[in-house]
């Protein structure tokens, strides 16, 4: 009985020892790596904040309207974006390095996938960002035009334009990531639809003058009411 108990305890001890000798060193290594990368990330952020302060990237973001996309006040600073971006990239690299310290099939595959996906993720992020910017730009264009032309429910139309453009950007980004490949065809159709919409808007804007001149011919033969309206526009 005692011998059996001793055997069980010895097996448990061996198992614990095996586990400790197998996993503790990589665990400690991973923890050390994480701590070091965290410190490096903090340092990098601190350095970048000082380097980027006053650089014209802030001006670019402010003037291009990108900052107002994320922050209504338009005061978002590139310094924070870049320094925090670099901070998280370093943390990410640290996490992957820490994972690879375990040297198992699963962690190797995770690291491999992450390394392979990273550039694509960046590109996809940029696609979405550009899409959001374009959506906002076109939405505002439609809003101003519609309001000046007295179009009813113009805010809804502008929101629709924004949603369509953002949706197209998301679909393109997803396709770039090989994510939901099956929607490629749908994305293509949406893209064509978006292009047609954009072209319609452009033609609408471009042809307004021509249409107005065409209507002008008709207006001339119209009664005094039209003449009254005209006199309103002696603005210059």
């Amino acid at each position, binding site marked *: 009985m005692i011998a059996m108990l001793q055997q069980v305890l010895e097996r448990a001890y061996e198992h614990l020892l095996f586990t400790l000798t197998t996993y503790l060193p990589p665990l400690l290594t991973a923890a050390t790596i994480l701590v070091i990368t965290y410190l490096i990330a903090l340092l990098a952020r601190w350095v970048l904040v000082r380097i980027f302060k006053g650089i014209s990237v802030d001006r670019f973001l402010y003037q291009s309207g990108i900052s107002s996309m994320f922050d209504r006040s338009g005061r978002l600073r590139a310094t924070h974006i870049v320094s925090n971006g670099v901070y998280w990239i370093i943390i990410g690299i640290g996490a992957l390095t820490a994972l690879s310290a375990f040297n198992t099939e699963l962690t190797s595959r995770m690291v491999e996938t992450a390394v392979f996906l990273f550039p694509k993720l960046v590109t996809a992020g940029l696609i979405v960002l550009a899409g959001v910017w374009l959506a906002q730009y076109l939405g505002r264009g439609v809003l101003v035009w519609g*309001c000046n032309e007295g179009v009813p429910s113009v805010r809804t139309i502008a929101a629709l334009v924004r949603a369509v453009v953002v949706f197209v950007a998301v679909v393109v980004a997803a396709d770039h990531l090989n994510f939901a490949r099956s929607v490629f065809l749908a994305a293509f159709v949406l893209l064509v639809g978006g292009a047609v919409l954009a072209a319609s808007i452009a033609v609408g804007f471009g042809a307004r003058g021509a249409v107005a001149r065409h209507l002008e011919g008709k207006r001339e033969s119209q009664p005094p009411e039209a003449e009254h309206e005209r006199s*309103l526009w002696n603005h210059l």
Partner: protein
Amino acid sequence: MPEQQLPEEHLRQVRELGKADIVVGIPSYNNVRTIGHVVRAAQAGLAKYFPQFTSLIVNSDGGSQDGTREAVLSSKVEDAHLLMLDTPKFPVHRLSLPYHGIPGKGSAFRLIFRLAEMVGAKAAAVVDSDLRSITPEWIDLLLRPVVYADYDFVAPYYHRHKYDGTITNSIVYPMTRSLYGYRVRQPIGGDFGMSRRLIARYLQRDDWETDVARYGIDIWMTTIALAEGYRVCQSFLGAKLHDAKDPGADLSAMLHQVVGSVFTLMQEYEAVWKTRSGSEPVDLFGFRFDVGLDPIDVNLGRMLQAFAKGCKDLAEIWSLALAPDVLDAVLRLGRQAAAGESGFHLPDELWARIICDFAIAHRDKPPERGHLLRSLTPLYLCRVASFVIETQNLFSAQVEEKIENLCLCFEALKPYLAGRWGAYPGPKRQPEVQTAPAGAEPSKVEVPKS
């Protein structure tokens, strides 16, 4: 200006003419109804007041389909004896040429200036082709200060209906006056006289392919003359009666071009306007008299409706430009307009703040410029509506007082504008300012009291 930039046909016609001392330019687009009268007035004016000079009338046409160019070439002064014209020593030549490039008044002026430079004109005047009240005396009043008194730029001074020229009265005149410190009452009047050196300066510039090619041309010409220290004066021309400005053109595009040009030039001449405060009168020539004016009907309800709609839809875009307190005040007015409450009034101070905030946003947010300028339309209509309500029972002299008060508001707000302008973070663009040639003094003579 390099000759090769003009089509060979134009060059041939100009070479045939040789030299001309004075050029009168008339931009046109489908103005057959009125251009004959304008050409006859110009011709009579040149023959009567400048008989000793060789002169040329240039029609710069934007592709008229209604026989405008034929009307220019065929019109002649038939009752010369009634005008008591001496036989001129030199004939008045006429040319009608189509301009190329961006369709607009600015492109038409560019061709006129090029031709004036090519024929060696010492002075040039430009007059609108839709004028019904132009007389031969206008030509004298626009050109005499240049030809005989060494002025570089003659701006018009008219009697206009109180509701005529609301962009001028609400934005362009107060802004130009407060920025550059000179009281040029009609900075975008459309009828100007210019010296050879100022024309050369205009042609030297490289911003012709912007809003300057369209309605921005008038304020561009006036601003350059004022900001670069050329000698500027005004001539009283009487009443300005004209056909409506291109009724097909929409208001927001017009605002975009004119106000956009004011704001763009503000950036270029920052170093100039920041050093000036207050304003001083500008010489005014011509005998002043009162005249009857065409009535102008305004649709007040529609303007208020447009403003209320703007408040509902455009607050997001206005928030890019307006300070929070200004936006709040505007939105409160919008609710008042929507509710149809009586006593609707946009205070002058608030209007001046709106324009200053838009000027700053125009500088700070280039990609949003188009949206911002077009979104100004409902705010402008709010200002016009308020002005109409305020002045409906006032005479023109009282209305002029109101405009004077608005100008004083803009002048008082200049430190606010300069402060916010200067507070912008980041490197500033160096201004490209060219001063007037030696001997050209800015005008500082007292203006006769009206």
